[in-house]
């Protein structure tokens, strides 16, 4: 049993959606469902800060139901649905729609609201009205809020709402037209690039705005060495800044684009070797608080386009845990990896009451059981997502969610979704 309070050998008993006992050698009652966890790690369910569920508007790529199932298979018990749907989640009505659809899903589906109306970066969305429905994180993700004055006002306005504003850091004019990381590979491949500085400029700006307003800022999917250094400095200064990184940015580089496979097109783009090393170091040092999937499903026909016309994005809910364990096992103990995947993101998203542990009597029974030595090969055809756009096809990974318990219900047992 591993959670934020430490690790110990114990059985966990669950009833009526809550943990009722955590003790060695519990004797199950005769009518209990027993999940075998021998040689496994029992942990609080994982929490994804960054999930594109596509509903409403792009149901051919994903639905809330299918995305949540993929999440449960990956060990998640809560996901935060990003607002770049069609229409955008920028009003009470759309927040309610997504919450309603999420109510029957196999994980909690928390909602991120848009900062600006239609994510157009021009005027504030009704932040207080959405916050009143429980929205705890706002972002225009997919693009950054370009107007520094508007972003300042959003931070000031939101600072009394007990919410966090999150930024997709990308200076749009500098990044304009870019399809991959700008550098050696983009130059060889003749593909327009997105310089690292397009991200770092906005990271720097939003750290400055956090200093100016005193408001919390969460920086989404950081991908460059420069961004990691900026966040590290902001934290040293004591600013209210948190950050996340995506699994693909801790192991894949822009060299993957050499064959023009659009599975490797993502935004922020796969960066250089030094950036990957810096992201990993940032996860180890605590500069980066969380691993977030940026699960971004796209229909196969959309991805089968010329590289510069294909939409950016990769699915990741079913591979994030395994990629993190495979890639970081040498650097970090499993408790530290789970902190990045569970309790830290739960705190950032305001979900700590229900998710992220600790696993103790009275806590909500949102749990996952991880087999740290299971090895498996990624096969996109087996994904529960409606999309197949993983960059990890054929990759051998070590570590896998074996069971997932959501509100006391075993929704995944031995790697199989139960509904």
């Amino acid at each position: 049993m591993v959670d934020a309070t430490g690790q110990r050998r114990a059985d966990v008993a669950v009833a009526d959606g809550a943990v009722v006992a955590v003790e060695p050698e519990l004797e199950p009652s005769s009518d209990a469902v027993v999940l075998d966890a021998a040689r496994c790690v029992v942990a609080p369910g994982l929490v994804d800060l960054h999930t594109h569920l596509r509903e409403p508007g792009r149901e051919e790529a994903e639905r809330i139901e299918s995305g949540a199932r993929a999440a449960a298979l990956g060990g998640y018990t809560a996901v935060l649905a990003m607002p770049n749907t069609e229409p955008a989640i920028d009003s009470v009505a759309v927040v309610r729609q997504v919450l309603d659809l999420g109510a029957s899903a196999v994980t909690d589906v928390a909602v991120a609201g848009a900062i600006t109306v239609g994510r157009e970066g021009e005027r504030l969305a009704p932040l207080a009205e959405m916050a009143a429905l429980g929205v705890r994180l706002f972002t225009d993700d997919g693009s950054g809020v370009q107007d520094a004055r508007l972003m300042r006002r959003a931070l000031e306005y939101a600072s009394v709402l007990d919410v966090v504003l999150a930024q997709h850091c990308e200076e749009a004019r500098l990044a304009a037209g870019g399809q991959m990381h700008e550098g050696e590979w983009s130059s060889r491949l003749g593909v327009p690039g997105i310089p690292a500085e397009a991200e770092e400029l906005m990271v720097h700006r939003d750290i400055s705005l956090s200093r100016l307003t005193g408001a919390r800022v969460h920086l989404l999917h950081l991908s460059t060495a420069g961004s990691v250094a900026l966040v590290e400095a902001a934290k040293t200064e004591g600013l209210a800044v948190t950050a996340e990184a995506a699994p693909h940015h801790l192991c894949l580089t822009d060299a993957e684009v050499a064959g023009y496979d659009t599975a490797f097109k993502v935004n922020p783009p796969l960066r250089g070797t030094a950036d990957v090393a810096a992201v990993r170091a940032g996860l180890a040092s605590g500069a980066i608080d969380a691993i977030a999937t940026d699960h971004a499903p796209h229909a196969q026909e959309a991805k089968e386009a010329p590289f510069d016309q294909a939409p950016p994005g990769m699915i990741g809910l079913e591979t994030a845990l395994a990629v993190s364990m495979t890639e970081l096992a040498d650097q970090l103990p499993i408790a530290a990896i789970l902190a990045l995947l569970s309790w830290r993101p739960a705190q950032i998203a305001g979900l700590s009451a229900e998710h992220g542990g600790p696993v103790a009597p009275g806590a909500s029974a949102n749990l996952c059981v991880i087999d740290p030595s299971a090895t498996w090969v990624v096969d996109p055809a087996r994904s529960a997502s409606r999309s197949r756009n993983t960059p990890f096809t054929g990759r051998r990974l070590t570590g896998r969610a074996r069971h997932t318990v959501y509100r006391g219900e075993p929704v995944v047992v031995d790697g199989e979704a139960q509904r």
Partner: protein
Amino acid sequence: MSDPMSDPMSGPAADPAADPGGWPVTATRHLLSIADLGRDGINEVMRVTDSFVEVGRRAIPKVPALRGKTVVSLFCEDSTRTRLSFETAARRLSADTMNFSASSSSLSKGESLRDTVETIDAMGVHALVVRHFSAGVPWQVASWVSAAVVNAGDGWHEHPTQALLDCYTIRESIGADAGLEGLRIAIVGDVKHSRVARSNVLAFSALGAEVTIVAPPTLLPPSLAGWPVVVSNDLDGVLPKSDVVYLLRLQTERATESLLPSVREYTAGYGLTRERGALLAERALVMHPGPMNRGVEIAAELAGLPNSLVTRQVANGVAVRMAVLYLLLGSGADLGA
């Protein structure tokens, strides 16, 4: 000719991601990049081209080498000379040709590129000659079809048959069978957006030439790491030391994108003006892939000088493309038949 089906256009596929220090290498039975060929492959194309240049001089410039083969040109970007050159090459080899252009096709009716390509492939064609405005499309097409794919230009990326015909044209002019060893070649202009430059840097350097790129900083690729070139922005200093001056086409919209203050300023700094013509070494060769902007990258009177190879480039284009199609589809028929 030795078995044209095996060497040198085939070889083990390399994993592009495994060698971040090298140029991406992919194909076995396709011609996607000059990097697929290497020095030996380029020389083999040159050798086969010699035979087809001879065919081109005959009263009836046609051989039955690819009789029964079908070559489809799939052009998703405007092109006149390259498409005509490939189609002429295919017909002179007695292949059947089909022409598919994006504007008149199902692509403009919303069919995906993959569906279009697979439909054509299902008709049993043998080669697809692909031109596309997006970098990488020939690689994607090659992964979807069983036909051989020839890259006829992909975005800013590569244009391998242009580089092959340029190599052939230089060799023809200097009479060197050994290659371009030690030859000083200046490539001048918009390298950043040029597929011709990317293929020619690979081809010229593979054959031993010393390549200098001359361009304003805004028209250079963001990184030249791994490029076997020297960079200069002093055309006046480079010209007297160059055996070949290769001018790239300047698209006038580069000025509206603020990559340049004006076309006039480009010409003043990087155009082969009449005044600069006097700086050329005595036997220097002047090349241009066409279509030329006379008065922008090259003064009108210089384009017509005897050491300008522009029309030889076009003429050799057909023979080089015959050689490429023959090497890829090789019927084994006797060239002399």
